[in-house]
Every structure is written in structure tokens, then in C-alpha cells.
């Protein structure tokens, strides 16, 4: 086995006695003591995550927009204001999801993409292959020289300005889902928690100083454990769990990210038009005692299904899940989840489960 890759913040995690684990070949903090406390601090105040394992990819050149309009399932023509971000899936010709990503529009000749750590190598190979076929002159540059820190929570903005007063002028006026350059930092009002917050991409060398300044401003370090329970409560899909190359966006609750309209012919579109839509993603809340987990099987009135992400929700003090079930299953339905060979009652609910600190179910 090759040694684990480390982010520029590895020494900071060790200083804080993080429990470090292998995540997609990266040595990442799982938690710094209590995952549940880290979860609550993001819902109530402000926490930060080292997400430097995610890969920034810059797409530069005049053909950037037409290229991206073929590469991804959402429509980059929705990006007309400078700084606007767009969430999308990137599909293969069969309609399965290669990865989910965010595209930030900076100019007609510069779009910035952020992709998942575990998919980075195959994504970049795919993008280069498509580039060679569709837009040979386009520059596609993976930015391994950048670190990325997510500062999330209702107090994220205030604490960020305390840590780095120079950011407030530009970043303070960013609307949700917009990003802007501030000196050599790229600051975006995006995240993976269901709270207000920012994702900041900056030179790797500057990351430990920035992290330290955030610590001193009262932002608590949070690990991947809390990141997972926060995103689950926020109803956000996790690649590799809720969808993968065998799953279409329609089966992963991501129809809202696919623009089927008009003549635009993105990769995977024809398969999506042809494939039956007989499975859907729903939320579950466990009624009986226990904990819902990925891969538990479900029985519904319309047939079998499976949990794709499940766990304990610290905000709701209950177990919740995302599950793939047959079409026809409706919010309010009761389903049976098999936990250790015993049926447990769960209720189908609309998700997100939690937004901006508030329970929605």
C-alpha cells in the first residue's frame, strides 16, 4: 500500500490531537475529540474543515463554456453573473455519475471546478480525454498547489472577518453560491453542511497560518465525521455512497441538477432520455430504536429498496437516512428497514432534514 497523502494542514491536525484516518488515500481528521460536539458547533456557531484533499481544476480558454456545456449535466448557461457557482454531475455516455462537482464562473475564459478527492484521478483523465476530442486548445489545470478550508456555521462570516479582516470587503457581500478572488485567495459562499459559510481556496503554503488565525478567532476544527452527519442532515448526496457510475442523477435525488431542456447535447443525455425512471431517492426517519446505516435493505408497498446513507442525526436526536426506493413511495409512507435481520419501522420524509440550524421534519 502506498503511504497516505497529507494535506498542508496535517501538522495542525496532529497538534490538535485529531484522530487521523485513511480517506480515499489521504490521511484526514475523523474528529478532534467528539464528532457530535463538532456537529453542534457548526449548527450553532462556526466550525472549519480541512478539505484540501478535494481537487481544484481550472478550465481556461475561449472554448470553456461550450466545452462545459457538453461535459456536465447541468447547464453552464445558468452561469451569467461573475462568480456564480453551479452544482452538477458529470456523466458517462451511459448516464451514470462519474462525479459530482461545483463549477465557479470567473470569466468567459476561466471556469474553476472542484471535484471529489476519491474521484480526482479518473475525473481529470476523463476531462482531458473529452478536451482532446471536443476542445483541443483548452487548458485544464489541476491545482494541487492549492489548499481548501471550509468555514461553516451561523457565525462563520463574523469569525472569518475577525481572523482575516481584509476579506470582509469582497467576501462580505457575496451572495450564497457565489465566489470571488481576494488577493491570492478564492472565497466562495458555498459548503456541504446546510449552514451559511465559506469555502476558501488558497496557496498551500499559506494554509497553516490561515488555519491558526481561524482557530484564534474561535472557529473550531471539525473532522470528516461531523462533515458526514452535517451533510446527511442537509440532504446532500455523497459520491460513492448515494450515487456512482451505475446510478443516474434521477435515481440519486439529483434531477434538479440535470437540465434536459433544449438542444444542448451533454454526455449521457441520450441515455437519460432512454432509461426508465423507476427508482427515486427519499428521506427516512427511524421510528423504532436503532441506527439506520448504508446498505440496510428496505421493504415498501412498491417493492424493495436500500439505504445509501444513514446515521444518527445529532440535531434531531434520531436516526435518519437517504434511501433508494421504487417510484410510488410517498412521504408519510411507513417502510420496514432490516437492521440485524429484524424489521424496524421507518417513516418516509421529505429531505433536507435540517437547514440553517432548524429541523425541517
Amino acid at each position, binding site marked *: 500500500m502506498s503511504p497516505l497523502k497529507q494535506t498542508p494542514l496535517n501538522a495542525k491536525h496532529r497538534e490538535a490531537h485529531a484522530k487521523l484516518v485513511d480517506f480515499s488515500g489521504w490521511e484526514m481528521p475523523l474528529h478532534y475529540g467528539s*464528532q457530535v460536539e463538532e456537529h453542534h458547533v457548526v449548527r450553532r456557531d462556526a466550525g472549519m474543515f480541512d478539505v484540501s484533499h478535494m481537487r481544484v481544476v481550472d478550465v481556461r480558454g475561449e472554448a470553456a463554456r461550450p466545452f462545459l456545456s457538453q461535459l456536465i449535466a447541468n447547464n453552464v448557461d445558468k452561469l451569467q453573473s461573475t462568480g456564480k457557482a453551479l452544482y452538477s454531475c458529470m456523466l458517462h455516455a451511459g448516464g451514470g455519475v462519474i462525479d459530482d462537482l461545483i463549477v465557479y464562473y470567473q470569466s468567459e475564459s476561466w471556469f474553476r471546478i472542484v471535484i471529489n478527492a476519491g474521484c480526482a484521478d479518473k475525473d481529470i483523465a476523463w476531462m482531458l480525454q473529452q478536451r482532446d476530442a471536443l476542445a483541443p486548445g483548452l487548458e485544464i489545470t489541476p491545482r494541487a498547489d492549492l489548499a481548501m478550508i471550509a468555514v461553516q456555521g451561523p457565525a462563520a462570516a463574523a469569525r472569518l472577518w475577525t481572523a482575516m479582516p481584509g476579506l470582509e470587503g469582497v467576501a462580505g457581500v457575496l451572495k450564497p453560491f457565489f465566489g470571488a478572488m481576494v488577493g491570492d485567495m478564492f472565497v466562495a459562499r458555498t459548503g456541504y453542511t446546510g449552514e451559511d459559510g465559506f469555502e476558501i481556496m488558497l496557496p498551500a503554503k499559506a494554509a497553516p497560518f490561515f488555519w491558526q488565525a481561524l482557530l484564534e478567532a474561535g472557529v473550531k476544527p471539525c473532522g470528516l*465525521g461531523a462533515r458526514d452527519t452535517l451533510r446527511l442532515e442537509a440532504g446532500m448526496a455523497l459520491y460513492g455512497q448515494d450515487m456512482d457510475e451505475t446510478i443516474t442523477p434521477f435515481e440519486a435525488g439529483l434531477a434538479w441538477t440535470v437540465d434536459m431542456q433544449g438542444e444542448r447535447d451533454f454526455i449521457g443525455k441520450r441515455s437519460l432520455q432512454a432509461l426508465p425512471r423507476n427508482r427515486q431517492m427519499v428521506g427516512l426517519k427511524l421510528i423504532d*430504536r436503532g441506527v439506520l446505516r448504508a446498505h440496510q435493505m428496505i421493504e415498501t408497498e412498491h417493492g424493495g429498496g436500500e439505504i445509501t446513507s444513514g446515521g444518527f442525526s445529532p440535531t434531531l436526536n434520531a436516526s435518519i437516512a437517504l434511501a433508494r426506493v421504487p417510484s410510488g413511495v410517498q412521504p408519510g409512507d411507513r417502510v420496514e428497514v432490516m437492521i440485524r435481520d429484524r424489521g424496524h419501522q421507518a417513516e418516509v420524509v421529505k429531505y433536507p432534514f435540517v437547514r440553517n440550524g432548524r429541523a425541517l421534519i
Partner: protein
Amino acid sequence: MSIPTDLKYTASHEWARLEADGSVTIGITDHAQELLGDMVFVENPTVGRTLAAGEECAVVESVKAASDVYAPIAGEVVSINEALEAEPQKLNEDAYAHWMFRIQPANAADLDGLMDAAAYQAAVDAEAH
């Protein structure tokens, strides 16, 4: 946290204590809760159930994972700690102060087959390497 010397231990990280009335109280060790992280669920065996030594009989779940709890010795379940089921996080505060279930052993001498604190410490140390 140091390992209490008045308890007996298993390789699967349960502790067992012989009570004055001859029953045996069972819980999970501090090392077990440390490995699992924040506890969110405890399921005990039903009272009256007869357990074989080493039988899967209870479950603890943390935010991270589910873990089976095994009967350290054979016996019949005589009581369970319902208060712990309502507040699983107590296991993170002090795993030795919060028991899970109590059995009437089939043979009290079976306890002698379990590890003492020094042997358990050695087993935990060996696991870390």
C-alpha cells in the same frame, strides 16, 4: 484512563464484575468506547435469555459504527440497564461506571477464565502495534 483492577476482561472488550449476590455485571471497556467514538445507541438482551459464553447478545452503536457485545461467560440475563439505553453517551463519560446487563452465571468459576487488568492492558497494547 487506567484499567480497574477489580474487574475481569475479554479480548472483545467487555468487562465483568462478580457481585455479592453471585450475579455478574457486564459492560464495555473504556478502550472500546474510545475506538467507537460518540455513542448513540445501546440494545441489551432481554431479561430471562440464556446466553452461551461468547454469544452475541447486545449491540452498541456510535455515530461511526455498530459493534456487537458478547457474553463473557454463560448464564441467564437477570437485569438490564435501561437508563443507559436512554443515554448511551454515558459510556463515553465513564465506561466502567455504566453497566449494560447482569447475568446469573451457569458456573461462577468461569470468571477465572477471563483476563485480569494486567492481561487486558497487555492485549490492548498489543492491538495498538
